[in-house]
């Protein structure tokens, strides 16, 4: 689903998820809920899990406990009194739907984001897992009752079902994200997998464990196995909060060059936004995008070492050797952090042309550095001529970059930049 309309992808997931949810609810309401106390216990756990959800870096919301409970209910084949679990796929959907709607209403009442798309995603993923489980186990995805009687060792089916659930969940999440960011699907999916895999594995393991233990320990197993998952969630929350702080701090401190009068107000921020969008066009990973973001924000930090600010802050007007010296000084500052070496390398290389006379492209100049270089030049050119030229300014600036494509600016970067500007409606 590359490109496309962001709102459309989101609405499609929402309609499908809630549609299936309503259908499952209606079927269950018509037939009645078998073993009501079991259904209610799982619904309560899903609800609690959704209320305790954790926000991961990159605005990814996750509810490990809700996910584990939903998965466990779809995989449950027997109860502790020796009876079989009698619920089918529609009951599973109904339980997740009811708990999800209740949690959305509570979030709404507490004036927090209800995250209905995430709810729709959870319903679809759980339905897929429940259907896959029954398909592998008894050959019919919508089998209703007494699944357990026909299977002695459902572990393989459980594992396959859990993987199907994770795949649907991450796939849909990446599709919505890719449409929203107007970026290619494959790299976004890869980022999604990298970011979510550890927590997804912990969630799936706990879900399977609950389903395996309820026949032995009874419904207490649900509470007991929430504990390790809560610890996991707590660790992730701490990590997420320090990541956010780190990002916000670099963003804030990158403004020192503006406050000091070295560059135009907002320059660093604009170059960052543009660079990250261009980086997405190239399908960079989250980790590379973060380095790119930091490098773009701090690309002018070397100017702090200058006694007097360059007029209007644009390094376009200074001699190449001076430009290189400033980049070098900036890289030194960044290197003293001890951990941002890759960012320092990008900042250092941004003054170098992407290729030298009569040579091929310089492999020592990382793609991120070429992106920052072109985006920074573009922003300088646009802001110096915007007042006089109006909307023509963007075209003129791109034209100037194109004239530098022989050596200064990588043509692929300029091409990607043009696309980004077109998508954003700047051209």
């Amino acid at each position, binding site marked *: 689903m590359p490109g496309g309309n962001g709102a459309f992808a989101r609405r499609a997931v929402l309609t499908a998820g809630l549609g299936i949810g309503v259908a499952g609810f209606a079927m269950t309401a018509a037939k009645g809920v078998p073993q009501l106390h079991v259904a209610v216990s799982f619904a309560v756990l899903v609800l609690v899990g959704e209320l305790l959800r954790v926000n991961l870096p990159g605005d990814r919301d996750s509810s*490990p406990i809700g996910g584990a409970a939903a998965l466990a209910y779809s995989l449950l084949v027997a109860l502790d009194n020796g009876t079989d679990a009698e619920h089918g796929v529609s009951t599973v959907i109904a339980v997740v739907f009811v708990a999800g709607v209740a949690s959305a209403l509570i979030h709404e009442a507490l004036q927090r984001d209800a995250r209905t798309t995430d709810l729709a995603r959870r319903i679809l993923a759980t339905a897929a897992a429940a259907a896959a489980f029954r398909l592998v186990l008894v050959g019919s995805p919508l089998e209703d009752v007494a699944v357990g009687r026909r299977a002695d060792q459902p*572990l393989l089916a459980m594992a396959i079902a859990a993987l199907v659930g994770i795949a649907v969940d991450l796939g849909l999440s990446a599709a919505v994200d890719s449409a929203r960011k107007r970026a290619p699907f494959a790299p976004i999916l890869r980022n999604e997998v990298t970011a979510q895999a*550890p*927590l997804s*594995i*912990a*969630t799936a*393991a*706990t879900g*399977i*464990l609950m389903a*395996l*233990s309820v026949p*032995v*320990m009874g419904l207490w197993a649900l509470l*007991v*196995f929430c504990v*390790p*998952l809560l*610890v*996991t969630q*707590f*660790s*992730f929350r*701490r*990590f997420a*909060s*320090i*990541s*956010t*702080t*780190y990002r*916000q*701090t*670099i*963003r*804030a*401190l990158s*403004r*020192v060059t503006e*406050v*000091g*009068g070295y560059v135009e107000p907002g320059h660093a921020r604009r170059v960052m936004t543009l660079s990250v969008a261009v980086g997405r066009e190239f399908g960079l990973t989250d980790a590379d995008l973060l380095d790119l973001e930091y490098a773009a924000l701090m690309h002018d*930090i070397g100017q*702090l*070492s200058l*006694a007097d600010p360059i007029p209007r802050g644009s390094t376009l007007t200074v001699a190449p050797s001076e430009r290189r010296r400033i980049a070098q000084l900036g890289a030194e*500052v*960044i290197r*003293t*952090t*001890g*951990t*941002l070496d890759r960012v320092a390398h990008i900042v250092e290389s941004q003054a170098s042309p992407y290729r030298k006379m009569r040579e091929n492209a310089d492999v020592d100049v990382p793609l991120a550095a070429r992106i920052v270089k072109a985006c920074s030049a573009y922003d300088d050119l646009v802001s110096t001529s915007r007042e006089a030229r109006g909307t023509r300014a963007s075209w003129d600036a791109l034209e100037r970059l194109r004239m530098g494509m022989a050596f200064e600016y990588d043509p692929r970067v300029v091409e990607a930049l043009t696309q980004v500007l077109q998508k954003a409606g700047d051209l």
Partner: protein
Amino acid sequence: MRELPPRARLYVLVVVLLAFGSAGVASMGFRGSWVELGALALLYGLATHFATPMGKNMGVSVGFIVALAAAAVIGPHGVGLIGLAGALHPVSGSGRTVKRFFNAAQFSLAALTAGLVFDALLGGDGTRNIAESSVPMVLLAAIAASLVYYVINISLIAGILSLTSELSLARVWAGNVSPVIVAYVGYGLLGLLMAQLYQEVGFLAAVLFLAPMLVARAAFANYAQLRETYDSTVRALVQAVETKDYYTRGHSERVSRVTEMIAREWGMREDRVQVIRIAGMLHDVGKLGVPTKVLQKQGKLNQLEFEAIKLHPLRGYEMLCEIDFLTEALSGVYHHHERLDGRGYPMGLQDEEIPEFARIIMVADAFDSMTSTRSYRLAKTVEEAVAELRRCEQVQFDPKVVDCLVAAVEKHGWEPHAEPFHGEKVTKEGRRIDSPVPVISTKQGLVAVTPPEPEEGERSARG
């Protein structure tokens, strides 16, 4: 092994021989399935490998859960062999083979002893005795085993540390006993649960049980690493800002240190200490918006220049206001030039109106300014600075904060930051030998920038 002193080498050898010997002897009493034992050993090794212990919490490992579960399921005799899989514990630096052997040995000894204690408390008949014992007894046995495992673990490590670092054994030991011991008791109970799962649901259930905990440990390790990175990044960026003014170099970091010292003495909660520490580091970041020649000007400032200076808390506030973590500290950055008598800037707040964070940063800022060399004067000694703060309390500073500073400096000491002053001679203590520029009167404020006549500054600050 070459870098180890001979005594340490002997120690490692003894521990390794003891561990391998006792694991071997104990395993002769093992009657269970060797496949089961191998699987548990693998699980123990993996848990030890992935649950990276960090810093002070050395030796803490999810592996203990597996060790206790193994003691409960297959009896104590095989646990020594399982502990040898502790060789998979991550090691770094030189002499890795020796470290691996030592880890295998110390984990094995700890696991075997804990297993024997657990078994002895439950009647000592070897295996599968949880079900027959009473619940309180099983819990007691698990807790006792946890403590034994922990104590042996850190004692053996303290031994090698003390032999290689020449610190006394008691000191290393005391330095490593930590609240983590509580976590160990928790791990012991989880170990019981895992044993139960293993017996009633199966081995794979035990594996699944460990997954979330290993993921949690990995996330926590990432968190700890990023936290360190955060500090060094803020420090580096602040240093870059300070390159503009030779005489304030290192000021921010020192203010951060003093702020933290005061805050701890003040009895602040740990999370708020972390916030105010970073705020102390960033309190002057808005100075970058003030022209360098004004900052470095010697002598009195005119009205216009003083106005420029007075903007710096606002600039700092504007820059930092989007960092959520610092929300409470923003008031500290914005108001760190207020005075108790209301003659400070930017708002002219008085006494209790001045936020707690600002009152602390204010004192830390003044203290470091006075004890370091500036373009217009030399560094004072700690005693002189404290006397000066005392003289200005009630008027400028909160006496309670000054009390905390004095107490903290008495406890931890403070090295005045005396740099050579325009090439003039300065003694070791930072005392000037001769002063080319008279020290500016402290009536007008002790901070880095000396405002002009108070009446003028005051009116415009309030207007």
